[in-house]
């Protein structure tokens, strides 16, 4: 049985609400306050890292692993992906191809777990954990089995994958922008298109990250940041000090994060019982 206190949030050093100071970042299509984008730009411009490996949406739900080495490339990659990108092997290839020594990876909790484990426990000589300077994990409720969902959208709503411009999670529904119209799908309707593996995942915030980042409804326009170690703490404080980030205390939103984390854990336990 899972110990609730041990497994709900992992180690927490600080909880903050943050947003980018740069107007350009805020204007772009960012998930919340643009804090992750701002931190990455700070780390790049100050030489803390020499590249960011992240996913970029290329078409519909599909994402692709890319290396961003400039402010503009980071801005282009910002925004939700909604599908898992087969990240691991691509990240290694990208790091080697571009000879990156210090990278930040922006990833989902499952990927953060993999990178975190690899960094702390390098089993293979070919592991590249020492090159991963920052792991930024994004709050996650699950990713879609997107072939199936796209098929459903095509059959039921006549929406083609290539026409999908944006997907946003709103309260209680998923908003899909295709061409110039919007389709609002109740979450109940799309729930069964989440990947089965995500339905048994217990990690909402990404416990293996250096910094977990996410969004909560009641603080619109702000990014919630959970720092998990000194490394993460220094990145947030540095970005604030250098004027990239506006940061305020976020301890009052812990209740909401815990609630979401508990819901994901409960869902995982329920699904695990029926699947295994």
């Amino acid at each position, binding site marked *: 049985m899972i110990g609730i206190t041990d497994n709900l949030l992992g180690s927490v050093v600080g909880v903050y609400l943050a947003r980018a100071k740069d107007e350009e970042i805020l204007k772009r299509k960012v998930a919340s306050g643009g804090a992750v984008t701002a931190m990455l730009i700070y780390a790049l411009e100050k030489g803390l890292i020499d590249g960011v490996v992240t996913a970029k949406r290329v078409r519909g739900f599909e994402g692709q692993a890319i290396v961003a080495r400039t402010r503009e490339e980071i801005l282009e990659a910002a925004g939700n992906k909604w599908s898992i990108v087969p990240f691991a092997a691509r990240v290694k290839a990208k790091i080697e191809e571009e000879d990156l020594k210090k990278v930040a990876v922006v990833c989902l909790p*499952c990927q953060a777990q*993999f990178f975190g484990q690899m960094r702390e426990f390098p089993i*293979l000589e070919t592991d590249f954990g020492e090159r991963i300077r920052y792991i930024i994990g994004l709050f996650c409720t699950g990713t879609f089995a997107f072939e199936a969902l796209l098929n459903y959208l095509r059959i039921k709503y006549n929406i083609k994958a290539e026409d999908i411009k944006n997907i946003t999670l709103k309260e209680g529904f998923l908003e899909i922008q295709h061409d110039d119209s919007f389709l609002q799908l109740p979450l109940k309707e799309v729930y069964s298109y989440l990947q089965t593996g995500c339905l*048994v995942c217990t*990690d909402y915030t990404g416990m293996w990250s250096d910094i977990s980042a996410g969004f909560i409804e009641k603080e619109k326009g702000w990014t919630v940041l959970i720092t998990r170690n000194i490394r993460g703490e220094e990145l947030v404080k540095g970005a604030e000090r250098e004027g990239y980030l506006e940061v305020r205390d976020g301890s009052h939103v812990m209740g909401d994060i815990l609630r979401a984390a508990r819901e994901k854990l409960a869902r995982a336990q329920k699904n695990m019982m029926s*699947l295994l």
Partner: protein
Amino acid sequence: MEKLRVLHVDIGGCEGCNVSIIRAYPKLIELIDLDISYLRDNGFKFDDYDVAIITGGVCMNEPSKIEKLKDIRKKADVVIAFGSCAAFGGILRFCRGGQEPRPDHRNFQPINAVINVDYSIPGCPPTPQMLQSFFKFFMSGNEARLRLFKVSANIKKLSGFDLLDDIVLTGLCIGCGACELSCPTGAIKLIDRRPTLAQERCIRCGTCYIRCPRASQLLSMGGEKR
């Protein structure tokens, strides 16, 4: 702080893990007093140890090895199976007898087939940094970080086959590609976002299983896999 008394014994392996331990030692010398056969003439240095690191699988046709293992278990408070052969059987599972360089040996098992193991660390061989990390977390009492290796201590086999059975065939695979990256022999390839296994290349090291976010989650949640 007093140094940990650590014993290393190879019970029947290819020496890869031993080299890894030797390579790890310079950074551990402040923390542990390592008793390793390369550094002494005969017998054990002490009567009892805080930790015993065992490498290699145990040959079930050789009673002296089985007795030796049992003796080490009595001498050590904590036993670590280091490397895939000691942990899960690894490539030694493929021994059929009549093979060079140890022609008589034909049945190797992980050491937990004979004695209780406290932590199993897979890898063929695991890197020196792996042992250094292990001792860092072990000595600071960070059990949460070592949980995965603790639950692995009860598992007798782990391989790409188990990954397919437990994660892919149950539909739990999320297609992240961690297994593909972690396979030391290139036995796993992602096709249509799901892993496929070239079974003749799988050396049963268990690295893919330990590295899979979903599989390691199942293990650390207390899944009783044998």
